[in-house]
């Protein structure tokens, strides 16, 4: 490594309140880095990101004539922008800055105080070496494409799409299922107001279906995303519907006549649907699709009834999947959740004993548009005399999901009310704690208690149909504990409802790779900051709405969707976005024309110069991701601001102590 040429380096160490200073000995750090020959000034401050902190840096830049600035504080994801702006204000190129993360990567993860202090010194020393070869890079701005992609057509996706479309911008709304609506469309009443879900949802579904600014793609999936904030290119796969929507009138005759019956996923398998079907009668678009796996014509080339009865001639068995490319400036993820089906369901007789239902199955049973037209009945058609509702099935449980699903207490209380109202049955709620924070939620809980519902504090161990007493004969026996009276209880009932929680989608990991947004250990998307940026993600221009970020109820979901649309609209109204100036380039003398970089460039920014037989980077398209530099076998492709020498200098700095 060459001897350091830049001698005017300023180091600013942040206490972050006590976040850093309670573990890292700031005084020692400042003392140690002051002694480095390249460092002109080393200062510390309680909150370096605050106005006085920023002013301190600006003042030292001016007074000491600093050439390079290092801030040792939190993650650059949080405040790199903040400090780069300080440099710009002080007439220094923003790339003469280096941020050292001594909070997330040191103070928060190192128990031993001496080691944490040593680590902070090592990391700062690395930065001091690194900034030696930093080069000034010019600012780059690109236009923002005003179109927006929304992935997922549940209430979150619907709300976000409508907000943006109503503001006058184009939205591509992609939904995997044959209709928008999501889980909310499966519910009957919503807590705590008990207003009907359909009454508030279906008008919005309808608006989405017919909005001139919304291009609704149902039965479709996003398969590829390239590009960056302001300029994403998205590939959507439209799965074959086998029904020409231009011709189809939605008359429904095909569904009536179709002879193939399969279990209805929308009705949680409580009834059957046809192989040509709409998800539910109020589906948007209200036109059917053919389920290719279960269609006799598509599997065996027999039948063809739907084609024969369709007067519009809309059935097309030759339909193929179609790949559509769209350009958008931002992306809203509203991919929702799935209801957990933990193994523990078996202990409660689920799948073995009749009249043991999951919460979603009960929602369908209770739904006015459901299989029983909303009547709560047992399998034999009779009304239940007694019902047990078991909370926290697979939630708040180290063996399954450790977290609280947030909505189950409230929907369970709602169930109790509905059962009492519709059947007059006795209701037993087995809960661990009742969690009812939210507007009018606690009041709803009080109301249910006054409706003669038996609330038993304790977890249920088992549900059995083996009777011990005559009372238990022919009943489901709920065996549990009442922790308030410290007694074991056995409660014979006719129906058991298992309150299962919210879980991330099974394909969350695939979606995470596709959109380049990380998920937490439970598969929910991680926000850029849990408090200050709960809707943004670490990928600029990609926002999260609704339950794909964690358990949320409907009001919270709608609020986050409106938040996400507001952030997308902010981008559109700004029109331009500053992008990374640290692009890549190729050294002509070293490039051997192996073309590996061309294969790898995610932005298709590299072309082959047939005359010179070398690869050439188009800097307008280059996003500076560095993939080519990592791929290039001969070291010809180089990434600005991440040159090999800078990284090796950094390593040497870390190891120099």
């Amino acid at each position, binding site marked *: 490594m060459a001897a350091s040429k830049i001698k005017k380096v300023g180091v600013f160490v942040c206490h972050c309140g006590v976040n850093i200073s309670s573990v890292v000995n700031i005084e020692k750090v400042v003392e140690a880095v002051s002694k480095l020959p390249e460092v002109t000034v080393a200062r510390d401050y309680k909150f370096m990101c605050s106005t006085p902190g920023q002013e301190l840096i600006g003042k030292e830049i001016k007074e000491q004539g600093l050439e390079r600035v290092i801030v040792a504080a939190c993650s650059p994801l949080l405040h790199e922008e903040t400090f780069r702006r300080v440099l710009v204000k002080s007439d220094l190129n923003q790339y003469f800055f280096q941020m050292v993360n001594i909070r997330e990567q040191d103070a928060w993860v190192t128990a031993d105080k001496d080691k944490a202090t040593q680590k902070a010194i090592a990391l700062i020393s690395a930065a001091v070496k690194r900034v030696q070869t930093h080069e000034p890079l010019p600012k780059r701005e690109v236009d923002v494409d005003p179109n927006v992609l929304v992935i997922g057509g549940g209430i979150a996706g619907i709300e976000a799409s409508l907000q943006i479309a109503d503001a006058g911008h184009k939205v591509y709304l992609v939904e995997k299922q044959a209709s928008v609506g999501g889980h909310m469309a499966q519910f009957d009443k919503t807590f705590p107001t008990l207003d009907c879900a359909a009454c508030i949802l279906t008008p919005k579904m309808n608006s989405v279906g017919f909005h001139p600014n919304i291009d609704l793609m149902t039965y479709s999936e996003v398969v590829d995303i390239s590009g960056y904030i302001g300029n994403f290119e998205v590939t959507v796969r439209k799965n074959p519907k086998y029904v020409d929507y231009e011709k189809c009138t939605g008359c429904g005759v095909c569904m009536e006549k179709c002879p193939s019956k399969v279990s209805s996923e929308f009705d949680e398998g409580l009834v059957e649907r046809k192989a040509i079907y709409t998800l539910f009668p109020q589906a948007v678009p209200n036109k059917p699709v053919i389920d290719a796996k279960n269609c006799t014509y598509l599997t065996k080339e027999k039948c063809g009834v739907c084609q024969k009865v369709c007067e519009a001639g809309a059935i097309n068995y030759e339909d193929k999947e179609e790949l559509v490319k769209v350009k958008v400036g931002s992306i809203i993820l509203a991919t929702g959740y799935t209801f957990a089906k933990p193994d523990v369901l078996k202990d409660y007789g689920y799948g073995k004993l009749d009249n043991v239902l999951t919460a979603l199955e009960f929602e369908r049973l209770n739904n006015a548009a459901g299989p029983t037209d909303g009547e709560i009945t047992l399998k034999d058609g009779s009304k239940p005399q007694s019902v047990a509702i078991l909370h926290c099935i697979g939630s708040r449980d180290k063996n399954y999901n450790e977290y609280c699903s947030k909505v189950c207490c409230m929907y369970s209380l709602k169930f109790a009310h509905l059962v009492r109202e519709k059947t007059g049955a006795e209701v037993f709620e087995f809960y661990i704690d009742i969690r009812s924070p939210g507007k009018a939620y606690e009041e709803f809980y009080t109301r249910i208690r006054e409706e003669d519902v038996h609330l038993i504090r304790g977890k249920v161990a088992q549900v059995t149909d083996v009777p011990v007493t005559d009372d238990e004969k022919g009943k489901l026996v709920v065996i549990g504990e009442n922790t308030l009276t410290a007694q074991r209880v056995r409660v014979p009932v006719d129906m058991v409802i298992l309150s299962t929680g919210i879980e991330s989608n099974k394909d969350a990991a695939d979606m995470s790779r596709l959109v380049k947004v990380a998920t937490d250990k439970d598969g929910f998307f991680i926000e850029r900051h849990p408090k200050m940026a709960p809707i943004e993600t670490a990928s600029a221009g990609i926002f999260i709405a609704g339950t794909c970020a964690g358990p949320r109820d409907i009001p919270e979901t709608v609020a986050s969707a409106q938040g996400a649309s507001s952030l997308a609209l902010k981008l559109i109204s700004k029109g331009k976005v500053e992008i990374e100036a640290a692009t890549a380039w190729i050294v002509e003398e070293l490039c051997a024309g192996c073309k590996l970089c*061309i294969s790898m460039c995610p932005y298709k920014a590299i072309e082959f110069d047939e005359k010179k037989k070398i690869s050439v980077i188009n800097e307008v398209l280059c996003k500076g991701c560095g993939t080519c530099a990592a791929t290039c076998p001969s070291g010809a492709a180089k990434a600005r601001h991440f040159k090999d020498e800078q990284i090796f200098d950094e390593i040497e700095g870390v190891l120099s102590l």
Partner: protein
Amino acid sequence: MSKLNIGAYWAASCGGCDIAVLDIHEKILKVNEACNFYLWPIAMDFKYEDVEKLEDNFLDLMLFNGAVRNSENEKLAKLLRAKSKLLVAFGSCAHTGGIPALANFYKKDDLLRRVYVETESTSNPDKILPQPKTEVKEGVVEIPEFYDRVFSLAQVVDVDYFVPGCPPNPERIWEVLEAVVTGAELPPKGSVIGATDKSLCDECEREKSEDKKIKGFSRIDKVMVDPKTCFLDQGLICLGPVTRGGCGQKCIKGSNMPCRGCYGLPPDIQDQGAQMISSLAALIDSKDPEEIDKIVKEVPDLAGYFYRFSMAGSFLEGSK
């Protein structure tokens, strides 16, 4: 013009580099006309003590092939450095450790045990291992000390030039000799000569695709190799992209075999093996960790394959 004083030496090597010198064929006579040899163990019988008697810098040119693996190699490297004006690390082993340096993946004790005790053809019930000093009736017998690891020449002494190759291409050898003999202007000290700065792909005429995706690795005994298509496009690992050109493409053109990397790393990369792994990793066409694992395991000896010639000078350097 007075004759040049030259020599050639082999340290830990197979002898191929010396043969390559002879592969300049009748031009060797021209070398003989222009030069006096003072050391060339493969061809002539000189003694070390003869060399020791020479004045420092007496030799105009010394071609040193082989890696430094034991105390004798090191002693000669230091001796020849002192006696030579130009010391050339000649061939892959002297340049970057070569095949002998693959032993750096193991510890010295493991190597000795394997070779002297465990090999299938060995019978050594008393597990006797070579010792630097052995006392016998007649006195003490000494053999060179076997080192913990293999070094490249430049890791032991100051080197003027590097000529890569396993072995170096005879045409390039002739160019080097000719330059010295004719007194042509020599490149800056430390240069790699007889090789290009660009990687071998620059010379390679095979058809290269612009959308390389590796779905799995194959081996040359498993497929019919198309002589017109880039090996990587056929799922065969070719080290050409991380290797200097200048070799004459004997493998890829002559034998339809992928490059094994003997011409060493181009100037702007730090570690030939790591760079190739990095490049190939980028090309693997899967996002599924399990599938990636399966693809990677199709290469039976990852480290040996990618560090075949460059272990001594790599980041890995040696097992500790």
